[in-house]
């Protein structure tokens, strides 16, 4: 027998916005449910290191699913005639449908990049459904710096441009093996999916006018951002944390935009204390 990793993957179909979508989910560990949300244009494999870390899985049931259109989850039937575009409402509905389908009891929720943005929306709108929100590289106000149309046109390879756009978001200190694995995930995205995700990340998901209403006594909020992240910069993350009373912010030195994927050994030094706190709150 091979030496299997502890990660187990399965498929199921759930309904989102009136449509059936076939979802791929991976999980490992036992304990407090911890739902993990991947970055724009990628998939749940980004959390594989966390799922193989007994320091996490001894206490948490770590669950990462691929959003519809991403990874091994399918787009809805009829996708071929649509342009994919992720909105705040659709993203929230998808995550809540997933948690309901999995019958999770007040999971902690952690997301990166666009996932980091949406967990704060969930803390604002559904604080009693989640025991904590952990925003990696997430902010309530973002500023785009490139045109999204470059990401989906027939004279440019969509996978290669997506990876080349985000390659500078990986910190130079991160190990090459994980840098390139992270970028491989971007190269494998379906046409227009990264672009469609960035609609939420850069256009639709701003809520700096409402983020101060998050009640961290009902749903604690943690924000962590990498020093080398030039999209959700430490400054944008800290400005968000300033607006969310009671939130806890950490700047991770020598880290980029994909902490759990690009430098797992360094990331665990920052995330384990946060997870300990989340666990203690539930006790």
């Amino acid at each position: 027998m091979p030496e299997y990793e502890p990660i187990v993957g399965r498929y199921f179909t759930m309904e989102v916005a009136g449509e059936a979508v076939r979802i791929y989910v991976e999980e490992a560990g036992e304990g407090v449910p911890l739902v993990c949300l991947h970055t724009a244009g990628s998939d749940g494999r980004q959390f594989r290191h966390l799922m193989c870390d007994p320091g996490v899985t001894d206490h948490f049931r770590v669950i990462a699913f691929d959003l519809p259109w991403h990874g091994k989850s399918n787009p809805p039937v009829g996708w071929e005639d649509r342009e994919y575009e992720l909105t705040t409402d659709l993203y929230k509905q998808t995550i809540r449908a997933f948690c309901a389908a999995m019958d999770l009891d007040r999971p902690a929720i952690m997301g990166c990049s666009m996932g980091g943005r949406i967990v704060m929306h969930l803390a604002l709108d559904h604080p009693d459904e989640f025991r904590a929100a952990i925003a990696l590289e997430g902010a309530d106000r973002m500023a785009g710096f490139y045109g999204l149309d470059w990401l989906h046109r027939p004279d440019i390879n969509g996978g290669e441009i997506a990876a080349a756009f985000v390659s500078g978001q990986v910190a130079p200190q991160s190990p090459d093996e994980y840098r390139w694995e992270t970028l491989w995930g971007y190269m494998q995205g379906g046409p227009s999916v990264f672009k469609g995700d960035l609609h939420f990340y850069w256009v639709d998901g701003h809520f700096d006018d409402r983020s101060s209403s998050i009640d961290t006594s009902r749903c604690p909020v943690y924000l962590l951002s990498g020093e080398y992240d030039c999209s959700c910069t430490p400054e944008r993350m800290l400005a968000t944390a300033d607006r969310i009373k009671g939130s806890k912010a950490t700047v991770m030195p020598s880290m980029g935009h994909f902490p759990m994927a690009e430098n797992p050994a360094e990331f665990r030094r920052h995330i384990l204390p946060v997870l300990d706190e989340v666990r203690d709150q539930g006790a």
Partner: protein
Amino acid sequence: MIEMLSERVNGNADLVRRGRYVSLTFLWGLGDDDYLVDIRDGRVEGVAKRTLAMETGHFTVRATADVWEEFWQPMPKRDHHDFFSMLSAGIAQVDGDLLPLMQNLRYFKDVLASLRKRN
């Protein structure tokens, strides 16, 4: 530094292979000086300081000499570690016909970074 560009690019067979469909001239602005970088089939065929106002390239990349100097450090500071990070931070500019740049973005980022100092 830029005088080493041909050697650094052409001596990297993988980089040349990734750029094998690139044949064009681009303009590289380093502080007060502009250079015309002539590329054929992924190889740097020439680097010449711009002397005439009408000499130009398909596209231009530009930053101050200090920014490029930091970009070429073995471990650059944040915002200086990648050309797109420099654009995001507002410390570099790009102009012209960006299509060939975007079609070969990894290649061109690597060409710019090929002058990075080695430990």
